[in-house]
C-alpha cells in the first residue's frame, strides 16, 4: 500500500517537472518576445516549434504508449491542415471574428483528423509490427497524394470539386474563388496562428497525454503494449484501446496541422510527405520512446537547430546531420549513458557532502 502511494507520488512529481519546464519555456519566450529583443527569425520559429512539439507528443502516444510504429503521422497533420484551411477560406467573410473562426477551425481540423484516424485504424488494427508500420506509411502517402490532385473552389452555386484541372475549369464559373488548387495547395489562408494559442494547445496535448498514461485506460494500453496475450487473458479489450489511442493521437496531429496551415501564406500537401513523418518519428526516438517530456524537448531542439545553424552558411545541413548522429549516440550508447550516470551521481554526492558540511557548521 505504502509502496504504491510512493510510486504515484513519483509520477505526479515527474508530471509537475514536465509542466514546470513548459511553463518556464513559455514565460521565457513570452518575455523575450514582448520585450522586442527577440530576432525576427526566432519570432517566426515559435509557432512551428509548438506545431512539431504537438505532433511529436501525439506520435509518442502511438509509438511509445501503444507500442505501434506509425510512419504516417504527417498524413493526419495534412488532413487537419487542409480541412481547417478550407473552412477558414469559406467562412473568411461570414465569421469576421478571427479568434472565434480560428477556434472553430481548430475543432474542424482536429475532428476531421480524428475521424480519419479512427477509420484508418480499423484495417490497421489487424496488423502488428513491421506490417502495421508499412500500412500506416501507405495511408500517409495516400492522403498526401489525394490532396495533391484535388481542386476545390466556391462560386455562386456552391462548392465545386474535381480531381483534374480540365474538369475543374469546366464546372467552375470564372468569378468563383479557388481554395485548393491541386499541387499548388492552398494560398491566402488568414494567418491566425499565434504563439499563445499554439502554446496553449501544446500544453493541453501534454496534459491529456500525461493524464491518459497515468489513468486506468493508460495502464490498460501499456499492458497491451508490454504483453498482448497477457492483456487479453485478463480481459482487456485490445481493439477498443488501440482505436482510442490512435484516434486521440490523430486528433492532436490534426491540431498541429491546423497551426501549420494558419501560420503560412501558402502550403501544399508536399510538406506532409514521408520525410515529414520520419522527422516527427526522429523527434520521438531522440526524446525517448514513451517519454512525453523528451518528445517536445527533442522536437524543439531538432527543429530550431537548422535555423540556429544558419550562421555556418552552406555547411548547415552537414552540421545538422553530424549533430543528430552525435545526439543519438550520446542518448543511446551504453558506455556514454554509464558515464553520464556516474557524473550525475558524483555531482549529487558532492552536493550532499556540501549540504551535510554546511549543516554541520551551523
Amino acid at each position: 500500500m505504502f509502496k504504491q502511494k510512493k510510486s504515484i507520488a513519483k509520477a505526479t512529481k515527474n508530471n509537475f517537472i514536465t509542466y514546470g519546464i513548459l511553463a518556464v519555456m513559455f514565460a521565457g519566450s513570452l518575455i523575450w518576445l514582448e520585450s522586442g529583443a527577440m530576432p525576427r527569425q526566432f519570432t517566426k520559429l515559435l509557432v512551428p516549434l509548438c506545431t512539431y512539439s504537438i505532433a511529436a507528443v501525439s506520435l509518442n502516444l502511438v509509438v511509445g504508449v501503444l507500442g505501434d510504429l506509425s510512419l504516417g503521422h504527417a498524413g493526419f497533420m495534412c488532413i487537419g491542415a487542409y480541412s481547417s484551411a478550407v473552412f477558414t477560406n469559406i467562412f473568411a467573410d461570414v465569421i469576421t471574428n478571427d479568434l472565434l473562426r480560428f477556434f472553430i477551425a481548430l475543432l474542424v481540423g482536429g475532428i476531421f483528423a480524428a475521424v480519419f484516424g479512427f477509420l484508418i485504424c480499423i484495417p490497421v488494427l489487424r496488423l502488428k509490427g513491421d506490417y502495421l508500420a508499412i500500412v500506416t506509411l501507405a495511408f500517409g502517402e495516400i492522403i498526401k497524394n489525394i490532396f495533391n490532385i484535388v481542386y476545390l473552389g466556391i462560386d455562386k452555386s456552391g462548392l465545386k470539386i474535381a480531381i483534374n484541372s480540365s474538369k475543374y475549369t469546366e464546372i467552375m464559373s470564372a468569378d468563383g474563388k479557388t481554395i485548393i488548387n491541386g499541387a499548388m495547395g492552398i494560398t491566402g489562408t488568414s494567418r491566425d496562428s499565434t504563439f499563445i494559442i499554439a502554446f496553449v494547445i501544446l500544453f493541453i496535448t501534454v496534459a491529456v497525454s500525461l493524464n491518459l498514461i497515468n489513468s486506468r485506460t493508460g495502464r490498460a494500453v501499456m499492458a497491451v503494449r508490454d504483453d498482448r496475450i497477457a492483456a487479453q487473458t485478463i480481459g482487456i479489450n485490445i481493439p477498443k484501446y488501440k482505436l482510442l489511442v490512435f484516434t486521440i493521437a490523430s486528433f492532436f496531429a490534426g491540431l498541429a496541422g491546423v497551426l501549420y496551415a494558419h501560420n503560412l501564406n501558402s502550403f501544399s500537401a508536399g510538406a506532409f510527405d514521408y520525410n515529414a513523418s520520419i522527422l516527427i518519428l526522429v523527434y520521438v526516438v531522440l526524446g525517448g520512446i514513451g517519454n512525453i517530456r523528451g518528445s517536445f524537448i527533442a522536437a524543439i531542439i531538432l527543429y530550431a537547430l537548422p535555423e540556429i545553424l544558419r550562421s555556418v552558411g552552406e555547411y548547415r545541413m552537414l552540421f545538422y546531420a553530424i549533430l543528430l548522429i552525435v545526439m543519438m549516440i550520446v542518448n543511446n550508447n551504453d558506455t556514454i549513458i554509464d558515464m553520464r550516470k556516474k557524473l550525475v551521481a558524483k555531482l549529487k554526492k558532492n552536493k550532499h557532502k556540501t549540504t551535510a558540511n554546511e549543516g554541520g557548521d551551523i
Partner: protein
Amino acid sequence: MKNFKKVLAVVMALALIVTCFAACGKKDTSNDKKDAVLKIGFTGPLTGDNAQYGLAVQYGAQLAIDEINAAGGVNGMKLELLYQDDMADPAAAVTGYSKLIDDGMKVSLGGVTSGACTAFLGEAADDNMFMLTPSATAVEAIQGAYAFRVCFSDPAQGTVSADYIKDNGVAEKVAVIYDSSDAYSSGIYKNFIAEAKVKGLDVVAEESYTKNTKTDFSAQLQSVKNSGADLLFLPIYYNEASLILAQAKTAGLNVKVFGCDGLDGLVSMENFDKTLAENVMLLTPFSTSATDDLTVNFVKNFKAKYSETYLNQFGADAYDAIYILKAAIEKANVTADMDASAICEALKKAMVEITFTGVTGTDITWGADGEPVKKPIAVKIVNGEYVVM
C-alpha cells in the same frame, strides 16, 4: 578516464572545425564600412534537390552586383547580396526571410521557387517590402502591389506555347505529359489546354506522372504513340525530360518535342546523350548562344567565375533582376537612409515606368500587377546548341 580523454579530444576537434567554418561564413559581411550599403536578399534552395536553381540565382545576382559595385555602385550606394537557404520548403522560407530582415535586408529578390516565394508573401505585405523575384513562376507568387517578377508566369508560358505551336504551324495533334504533383508543371499544363481549346489545337493525349513515379514513362509514351500525335508537349523539368526522351526512342516514338523553360539545361546535363535532344524545341527567354553584346558578356563573365553547370535561365533572370533594380533605384532616386517601406513605395512607382533591356529580353516593361511584358524566344536544339527559330 582514458575514454573521457578520447571523447574530449573529439569534442575539441569538432569545436575547432566549427569555429573555422563559422569564421568562413562571416567573412562576406565585413565589407567596406565607409560606403553606404543597400542590402538585397533572397531565399532559395541552396542545398537539397533543387539546389541548382538556388545556386544559379545566387551566382547570377552576385555577378551583377560585383559588376555594379566595381563601376561605382548605384546612387552612391554599394549593393550587397544576402541569401538564406530554404530547401524549397515554405516554412524554412519564412524563417529565412525573417533572418534576412534581421540582417538588414531592405529590398527582397523574393524566393527562387514558387512555393517558397508565396509562403512569405504575407510577411512581405506586413513589412511593405519591395519584392522582385527572378524565377518564381506561379501566379500567386506575386500577389500584391509590392511584388514583381522577371520571368514569365506559368499561365503565360502555357498560353504562349499553345499560341506559338498553332500560329507557326508546328503541329496539329498534340500530346502532353506533365507532372501532376508539381505546381510549375500543372500550372503550365492547365493554361496550355485552355488556350489550345480556344485556338482549335487538337490535344489528343493528356498523360501525367507524379514525383514518386518519375522514372518509368513507358505507359504514358505508349498512349502518346497510340493517339497519333505529331507533337509531344513537355511542360516539365529537364531531369525527367531526359528520361522521357531516352524512353521515347526505345519505344520507337517519333514525334516533335516542345517544352518550356524547364527544359533549359537539358544539353548541359552530365551523362546525357545529346543526340536525343536533337530538334527539341523550347520557349526560353534566355539562350547562351545569343550573339548580342549583353548575353556574350554575361556568358563570358559567368564562365570565368562560376561553374558552367549553373549557367542557365535562373542565373540570367537573377542577373537581370539586379540590373532592373538598379534601373528602378536610379529612376526612383532611392538612397541608403530610406527605410524598407519608403524604398518599396518609391520602387513600385518606378517599376511600371522603366523599360529594360537585358539578357532575358529586350524592351521589357511591367504592369501594376507585377507581370513582365516581353516576347518569348523559341529555340531549337541543333548539334547540342540552342539555335533561335
